[in-house]
């Protein structure tokens, strides 16, 4: 078990996590969470507690990747903790430390490479023309340039 007492201060500097310290652990987030209703692994209240206690192992685990970003918790939080955004901030930190599920890594890779989540070809544009739909740009060479350097070198995957 690793403890890093200033973890909460580091995190609250990241966009979305600013109100983290407002949390008084009421559990409204967990009570309304649709993922929690089906899967005990995910518990937003516990994730916030772990952050406040400096338990950085949360970054290497699966839990933070189970949020569907439905924003139910964020809408309901009486303390204005942006919980969904806080999970994004945690994921960004996790990625910077090399932890991310292969499926998520793939999404970023596709967007960097194709400018979209799915590659579109000339064939797709031909199909569009046939349906009377306008042709779309299919190559975005500059998009890869706005991804951070460390994302380009290799496909980082978690050890699991």
């Amino acid at each position, binding site marked *: 078990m690793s403890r890093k007492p200033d973890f909460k201060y580091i995190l609250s500097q990241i966009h979305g996590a600013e109100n983290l310290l407002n949390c008084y652990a009421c559990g409204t987030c967990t009570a309304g969470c649709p993922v929690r209703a089906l*899967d005990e692994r995910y518990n937003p209240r516990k994730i916030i507690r772990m952050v406040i206690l400096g338990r950085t192992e949360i970054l290497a685990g699966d839990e933070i990747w189970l949020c569907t970003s*439905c924003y139910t918790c964020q*809408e309901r939080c009486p303390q204005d903790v942006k919980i969904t955004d806080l999970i994004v901030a945690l994921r*960004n930190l996790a990625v910077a430390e090399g932890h991310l599920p292969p*499926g998520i890594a793939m999404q970023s890779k596709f967007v960097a490479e194709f400018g979209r989540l799915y590659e579109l070809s000339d064939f797709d544009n031909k199909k569009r023309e046939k349906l009377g739909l*306008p042709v779309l740009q299919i190559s975005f060479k500059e998009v890869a340039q*706005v991804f951070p350097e460390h994302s380009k070198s290799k496909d980082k995957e978690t050890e699991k």
Partner: protein
Amino acid sequence: MNDRYALFLGCTIPARGRNYEMSARQVARRLDVEFVDIAEFCCCGFPVKSTFQKTALVLAGRNLALAEQRGLDICALCSACASSLAESAHQLNHNEELRNEINMELANFGLNYNGKTNVYHFTRILYEFVGLDKIKASITRELNGFRFAAHYGCHYLKPSEYFGRFDSPERPRSLDALIEATGAEAVQYQDKLQCCGGSVLAVDENLAFQMAGDKLSRLKQEGVDALISICPFCTVMYDDNQKKIESVIEKELGIPVLYLTQLFGLAMGLGGKELGLQMNKVKTRTLLERIESGEAIRSG
């Protein structure tokens, strides 16, 4: 009222949701909403937010800048795009320091963003700007007697602070009201606001299918004629993946999933082909036949 928008398609619609695009264009034309196409639009940034949120903001800023160049606000068909672009616009339009930082990156694309673009979901435009009266006046085939279930999904209304709270995120009415404008019943059902689970599909497929399966099972009990979607990502879950979901939850479903724009098109008297109904994965033929046979009018 501004009735001219840059149409934002995003990633999923050109690849897997041409039926949404076709029907949205048909409906917009009939309601005097003009779409301007910008071929250079790229991903909205949402799929990248979890890994690099600054990059996501740059991609959003790129799209906002392209619309701004043409003096247009954005109309998004996908809820994830609407939410991601609206949140980014909110950040960039009100924070000059952040905008300057992002503009340094936008120079890669030869672009600069001045913070002028607003972002709306097409469903909001229909509800708030076009209005129910005009929609009702455009309907030539009332769908009385049909029962449809609204699926709001998550990002159409949330985070509500970026959407001006035009509808309640907890007790929304807009999509129900739009369905009712066709003469059909908007079925009230438990877990109406339940998330489709699409965002965890890449991490835990079984969990995602359980989430979508819960809602579809509930709708099976309710005996609805179709689920009405306003997001291509939700449709991928409920329509494209319905067969897989049936095998995961070991239940037969067979629930048609229509885009709101397809429903409107049918109520405006358009044919299934013009609305791309043949591209829907769960067969809609029986429903279409019932609508075309005038069953709706007779029972109403």
